């Protein structure tokens, strides 16, 4: 091989090898090109690349600009810029070629010299749109999309520091999903980054396609319903997490960003907290914690009082409950547990149906059937109100995963309340506390915001008083302002 000044490791690659890798799949574009008496091959995956850009920025320059005497010179000239494309990567193996092709590159094979991948990704991808779940009134409206590169650009727009780092990896033997770990040099503890990298590298599965796959493999599939990774669809919230010294994780194909470590304090934070003044935000945050407690304990507490400790109910309320239950054929336990199950069913049906029909089903199920059941004497209004309050309080929680974990535990505590009254509810609550105390994410305890008793992690302090980053994350730079 003539010395062209360019190093190539893939000179032994042949057209047959590349074609064989994809077999007879219909979406592989393989084209032979004549160039200065040499035979070149261009490959691309239909739909992943833009056909017009392939013609304009690869095939046209090849036929017009490459006039060298040997195939090695052609290869070197193409790599140096005669084929004008912003990205031109030399491919050292057939596997690299395959990786480039499935990622929207066009690969040109120079037989005997090597292969070059040019980026001409198709423009058909979803643009950033307002967040669907984490909506705010005043905050930014750009939410993550399914394409990891768009997401990294959104993050860059919020954090323009050159110290922002994205460490890319490929996970999934068959899905070959691109995973990007985001962190800020000079803030994030590097040990956290290394640990996250090791966790991602250790994932050995066919496909990393669903959020649960990411969460279970990254967190080690702990036996808990509580989320150990915080997800967000908001780029600003993700960036705030990075600034706090946390690690971000972006997965190609998922319109979400993950933040680790996650503890209960982070999961109870809403993006709205930072868009309003600290007094209102603190009040709302206290209300949110009350909602958490009500959602978790109210059904169990009601069953316990109604079945065991009636003397603890204020008399007018007790009389009204007794009167309302006069003609109800079911026990309080059956009523409340049945209503909780009905509530879950309604919620499930609302999720699986199209939005318009889902809303109708919720309205019919919640209001019409509920009212009819009370009027027919099948359930008491008190039980319906208790379950409704618990359900609505569950919706107040800003993190859906946390709300779902609370729903699961709500059933357990209600069952314990039915079995042993307030004694059972207390035992259930203690078991939950023990369980949460044992959870950690990247060595940060789940209940860490409440461990020091300073502000119990509930208050939203004035930003100018928040001078230090969370010390539990061991950030490199502990101060975030003077």
């Amino acid at each position: 091989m003539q010395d062209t000044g360019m190093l190539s490791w893939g000179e032994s690659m042949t057209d047959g090898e590349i074609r064989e890798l994809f077999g007879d799949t219909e979406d592989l574009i393989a084209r032979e090109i004549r160039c200065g008496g040499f035979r070149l091959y261009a490959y691309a995956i239909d739909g992943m690349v833009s056909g017009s850009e392939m013609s304009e920025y690869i095939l046209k320059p090849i036929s017009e600009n490459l006039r060298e005497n040997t195939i090695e010179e052609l290869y070197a000239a193409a790599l140096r810029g005669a084929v004008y494309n912003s990205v031109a990567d030399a491919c050292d193996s057939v596997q690299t070629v395959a990786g480039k092709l499935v990622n929207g590159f066009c690969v040109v094979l120079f037989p005997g010299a090597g292969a070059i991948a040019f980026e001409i990704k198709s423009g058909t991808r979803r643009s950033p749109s307002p967040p669907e779940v984490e909506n705010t009134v005043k905050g930014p409206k750009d939410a993550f999309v399914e394409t990891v590169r768009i997401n990294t650009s959104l993050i860059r727009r919020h954090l323009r520091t050159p110290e922002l780092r994205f460490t890319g990896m490929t996970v999934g033997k068959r899905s070959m999903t691109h995973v990007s770990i985001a962190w800020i040099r000079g803030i994030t503890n590097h040990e956290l980054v290394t640990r996250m990298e090791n966790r991602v590298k250790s994932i050995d599965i066919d496909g990393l396609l669903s959020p649960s796959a990411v969460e279970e493999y990254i967190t080690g599939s702990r036996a808990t319903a509580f989320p150990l990774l915080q997800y967000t669809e908001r780029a600003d919230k993700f960036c705030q997490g990075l600034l706090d010294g946390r690690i971000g994780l972006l997965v190609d194909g998922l319109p979400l960003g993950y933040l680790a470590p996650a503890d209960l304090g982070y999961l109870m934070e809403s993006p709205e907290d930072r868009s309003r003044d600290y007094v209102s935000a603190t009040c709302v945050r206290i209300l949110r914690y009350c909602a958490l407690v009500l959602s978790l304990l109210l059904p169990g507490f009601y069953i316990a009082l109604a079945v065991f400790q009636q003397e603890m109910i204020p008399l007018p309320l007790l009389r009204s409950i007794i009167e309302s239950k006069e003609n109800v054929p079911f026990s309080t336990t059956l009523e409340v547990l049945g209503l909780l199950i009905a509530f879950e069913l309604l919620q499930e049906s609302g999720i699986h149906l199209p939005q318009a029909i889902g809303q109708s089903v919720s309205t019919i199920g919640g209001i019409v059937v509920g009212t009819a059941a009370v009027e027919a004497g099948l359930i008491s209004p008190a039980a319906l109100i208790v379950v409704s309050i618990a359900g609505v309080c569950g919706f107040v929680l800003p993190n859906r995963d946390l709300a779902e974990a609370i729903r699961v535990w709500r059933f357990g505590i209600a069952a314990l309340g039915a079995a042993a009254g307030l004694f059972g509810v207390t035992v259930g609550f203690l078991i939950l506390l023990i369980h949460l105390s044992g959870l950690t994410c990247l060595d940060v305890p789940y209940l860490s915001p409440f461990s020091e008793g300073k502000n119990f992690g509930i208050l939203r302090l004035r930003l100018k008083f928040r001078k230090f980053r969370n010390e539990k994350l061991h950030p490199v730079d502990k101060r975030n302002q003077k």
Partner: protein
Amino acid sequence: MRRWILYALVMGLVLFVSPVEKTDVGELKPVELLYIRYTDENKVRIETDTGDLGVGETLEDALSDLKATASGNIFLDTADYLVIHRNAVTLLPKLWNILRPGTEVCIGEEGREETVDFLSAHKPGVTLNDIRSGRQTLPVLKRTEERYRIEFESNYRPAE
């Protein structure tokens, strides 16, 4: 997994070692007014605004009889008023332990549904707790010409 087995064991323990008794609120028959007196045969007679009746040699016997014969699970914790006959005021110290301390007391000679309506509007204002703390006067519920009236009787001191 071991942790979940531990949780299940604790839950099982709670189910079987539960120290409290179960009565659904729907099965309760809440009492608002109790009328207690001694009969001519020197028996304790308890009447409730719900129309239930209990008779026995002692207060405990009468209560047991009331609970056994009532058309439901008699729940005395809801009792707001106790109308006690003059001949039964000696039972008041025993009633401190049976009824709520906040139950309002008056002396009277009948306890009917309309008595509840009257007492709700014109509260006697003296509770079992007041008497226990040494209050000397007790209101008297008087009925003349189908009308009720509350008057206070001084120097009252129930026997211990």
